[in-house]
Structure formats: C-alpha cells, structure tokens
C-alpha cells in the first residue's frame, strides 16, 4: 500500500516537472518576442522624428531621413498585394466553389503548398531571370512587386480559402435551390460574408511583402537613389534592404547605427501592427461565425 502511495506521489511529481518544462518552453516564445521588440524599441525610438520620416538621406546616408525607403516599401508591398489578392481570391474561389476533388485540384493544391516552401532567395533569382531580364522590366518597382506577389500568393490563397470555408454550406444550397446560377450564388451569397475575413489575408500579405528582403534584392531594391521614384519602372530603396545595407555594407557602420535601429523599429512597427490587426480581426470574425451557427 505504502509503495503504491509513494509511486503515485512520484508520478504526480514527474507530471509537475514535465508540465513545468512545457510551460517554460511555451513562455520562452513570449519572452523572446517581448525582449526582441523592447530591444529594438529602446534603441530605435530616439532615432525616429519628423526629419527621419520626411527627408532624404544626406552625406552618403550617414545623416538625414529615410523617406525614399518608406515610400519604396509602400509601393512594393501595395503593388504586390494588388496583383496577389485578386489571383489568390480567384484561386480560392475555384478550389472551394467550382472544383470537384480530382487530379487537377490536387495538383493545384500541391503546387500552392510547394510554392509556399520555395526559399525567398529563389524567388529573387526567378524575379531576376523572368521579370527583370526576360520581360525587360529592369530593376524596378514593377519587377519587385511582381516577385513579391508570387511570394505572398500562397498566403493569400490560404486565408481566402479559410474565409470561404467558413461560409455555411446551407447558404449556398438555398441560393442554388432558388434557381440562382453558381456564379450568382458565389457573387451574391458567398462572397459578401467571406469578404471581411479575406481582409485578414490582404493585411497579412501586405505585411509579409513589406518585411521581405531576399525577393527584392535583385529585382527592385538598390543601395541608394538620388530621387524619389517617379515611375513604376524606377529602382527604389526599401526599408528591409536599407537595414541590411547599412548594417553590413554602409560606409560607416557604427556611425549609422541610430539609422539602422530607427529603420528596424519602423519596419517592425508596421509589420507587427498589421499582423496584430489581422489577428484581432480574424478572432472577432471567428467569434461571430461561432455565435451565428
């Protein structure tokens, strides 16, 4: 009796220790994120002021602002989502509304899964060979946007599919039963309730495109431009590439540290705020669906 009592206590203690370890691994994520954000925030906040946001770099990029990189990142990520969102939503509509399971659908799905796994630098190579050279777009906003669009396409497709799946099947059946065609059903019944949820994909796509460096390295981003871009065929400076260049290849790495921290903080703010917004939006919508069904 006493033996089994002891054994049970030991088993409970083992469980306590094991759960403690699991708790620690999970909490480590939180610590890592908070530490990361705090470190950049503390070091970067002093660099950010109006001049930093609104002026051109000066004196071989050791002084002045980062306006061209902010605009470059804005153009690139908006351009990317402008291309990727319609295609992503279209693909999701086909997969979820038209297609019956078969060879073609399986191929599309496997293709998207594999596309999501392609290394970012390989997207850069593809963009260089296809958009920059073959399509003769040159190193430009348009070439970078198209490369980024390909990069974020799997993400947009995924979230759009999720949004479509959340629309109850009964609504489609009811619409079809009333004599509406499939397209009328999609357009009038399925898309309206799915659209807000698709917005999360849109926001996540913008944020992912804004933060990526490797796909734009050979297709759009340059070390320095003297002017703001005036055409989609201009090369641009971009925030992620700017951080990379200043931190590794700047003329004076230590003297531009404040600019590096400042740019990193701004980029981090943009990406984290967009992500948080998307997460909150999705959680809200999920709750709405749950309560409505």
């Amino acid at each position, binding site marked *: 009796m006493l033996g089994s009592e002891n054994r049970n206590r030991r088993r409970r203690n083992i469980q306590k220790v094991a759960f403690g370890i699991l708790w620690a691994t999970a909490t480590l994520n939180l610590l890592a994120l908070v530490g990361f954000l705090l470190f950049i925030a503390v070091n970067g906040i002093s660099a950010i002021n109006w001049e930093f946001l609104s002026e051109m770099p000066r004196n071989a990029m050791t002084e002045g602002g980062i306006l061209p990189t902010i605009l470059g990142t804005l153009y690139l990520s908006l351009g990317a989502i402008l291309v990727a969102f319609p295609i992503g939503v279209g693909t999701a509509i086909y997969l979820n509304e038209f297609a019956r399971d078969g060879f073609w659908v399986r191929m599309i799905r496997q293709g998207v899964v594999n596309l999501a796994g392609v290394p970012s630098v390989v997207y850069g190579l593809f963009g260089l060979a296809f958009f920059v050279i073959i399509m003769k777009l*040159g190193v430009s906003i348009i070439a970078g946007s198209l490369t980024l669009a390909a990069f974020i396409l799997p993400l947009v497709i995924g979230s759009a599919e999720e949004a479509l799946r959340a629309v109850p099947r009964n609504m489609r059946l009811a619409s079809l039963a009333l004599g509406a065609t499939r397209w009328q059903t999609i357009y009038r019944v399925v898309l309206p309730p799915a659209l807000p949820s698709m917005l999360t994909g849109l926001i996540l796509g913008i944020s992912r495109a804004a933060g990526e460096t490797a796909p734009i390295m050979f297709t759009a981003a*340059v*070390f*320095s*431009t003297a*002017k703001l871009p005036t055409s989609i065929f201009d090369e641009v400076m971009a925030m992620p590439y700017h951080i990379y260049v200043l931190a*590794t*290849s700047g*003329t004076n*790495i230590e003297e531009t540290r404040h600019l590096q921290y400042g740019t990193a903080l701004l980029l981090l703010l943009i990406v984290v705020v967009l992500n948080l917004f998307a997460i909150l939006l999705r959680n809200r919508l999920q709750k709405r669906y749950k309560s409505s069904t």
Partner: protein
Amino acid sequence: MKGLKKLAAVAISGCALLASPVFAGQLSVNGSTTVLPIMQAATEAYTNDNPETTFSVAGTGSGNGIRAVIDGMADIGMSSRWIKDSEVKQAHENGVYIVPFAVASDGIVPVVHPDNPVKELTSEQLRGIYNGSITNWKEVGGEDKRIVSISRDSSSGTYGVWVDTVLKGDRVSPTTQLLPSNGAIVQAVTSNRNAIGYVGIGYLNDKLQPLKLDGVEPSHDTVRDGSWPVARTLWVFTNNWPQGETLKFIQYVLHPEKGQKAVESTGYVPLY
C-alpha cells in the same frame, strides 16, 4: 465585361501617369557602391552649377552598372573593376561599344588593431597570411596569437585587386572570413585584436592601424605616384563615346579643379 474594360483602361492610364517621360536633362548613373560616393558628391556639385540637369544615381554593384549600360538602361555605369570578357562579348552582341573613363584611384591598405605590435609587413608575409601558409602573428614578429584574416567578399572588385596584387593569383585560404564591405571590415578589425583586414584608403581612421608594406607608407601621394603596390583605378563606362549632357558631366568629373575635388572630399585619390 464592360466593367473589366473600364478597369483595364483606368489601369493603363494609371501606368501612363506613373511612367514619367525621360527628358533631355536627365542622366542616370548606376553601378558600383565603391564609386557611388564620388558620383554622389560630383552630381551634387554639378547640379549647383547646372540646375537644369537632374540625376538618378543608384548603387547597385559593378556588374549591374555595366549591365545597365550594355542594356541601355543607364547613361553612365560605375565600376570598381575593369570590364570582363563576357561583358565585352555581351556588349558586342547588343551592338554597343563601351567607352571607359578613369575617374579616381583607390589605394587598398592592410589594417590591424592598434594594440597589435606589428606595424609593417613584407608583401611575401602578407601573401602568406592570406593564402594560409602563415597562421600565427609570431611568424611575422608579433605576439604568439593565431591570425584572424578577414577579406572582402569574393565577388567584390576590391577582392579582385587584392588577389591579383597581394596574393599574385594564390587562393585566399578558405578559413578567411568574407565580409561584404569596407565598413564591415573596419568594424571587425576594430573589435578583434588578432585580426588583419584590408580597406580602401578613404576608410582609414584612428581605431585602425594601417600597415607599411615593403617599407612604403600608405598615403594619397604614394598611391598617386605608384609606389604603393596595392592600388586600382575606379571607372565609369558609357555606351559609345558620350555626347551632350553626358559628355559635359564627364568632363566636369575629370576636371582637376571641379570633379576631382569631389573625389578628394570623399577620401579617394584624385587622378592629378
């Protein structure tokens, strides 16, 4: 489908708006990030005298600069190295004749941490350090410490000059750290007492100890008169013999009292 057409029309007109016309007074300069500071300073000074001319200057790397000239995407390509055979061939295929202009000289200087007692090397010793046959500072008169050799990335123009003149074609030992820029080497050498690296002469500062090589002190004068052994010429390339605004600008850059002053202000060695 009327909606689609309308959308397409809007999109096309949008593109047309975005694509600004290239007007006569605009020059695009593209290429090496080593030459970039010179051209940034020169274009700034030039626009003070010629406000009607506007520039787009972009640092994209020597290869990209030469490619841009061959493809007709840039008026002037900056390069820290001489044009390669494959690029000449490419230009020939495109029906382009590439014209080179030397704009400045650059001395490349071996540097160590100021605490390192070694202040001077022979070119044979330097070659040995980089090809891996010398691995300890005591072999060249220093402390008994392992040598941490640091080099520029193998694709950079600076690396090419180093290999040709210091290593005389030997391979850089694979244990050598490869860093992407002069700035990165400055940082690595200032933070490591056992390190040796090499930087452009404009990057020397008081946290670095430049080394004498075969008794020659690195300076603007020794680079210009050719006695400093590790030097190179910085180039710009144009698509055929320059005309109009491009010619005027290149003449300005080469002028001893104008463009060459800008060269001096950026730490490089002027031609004259």
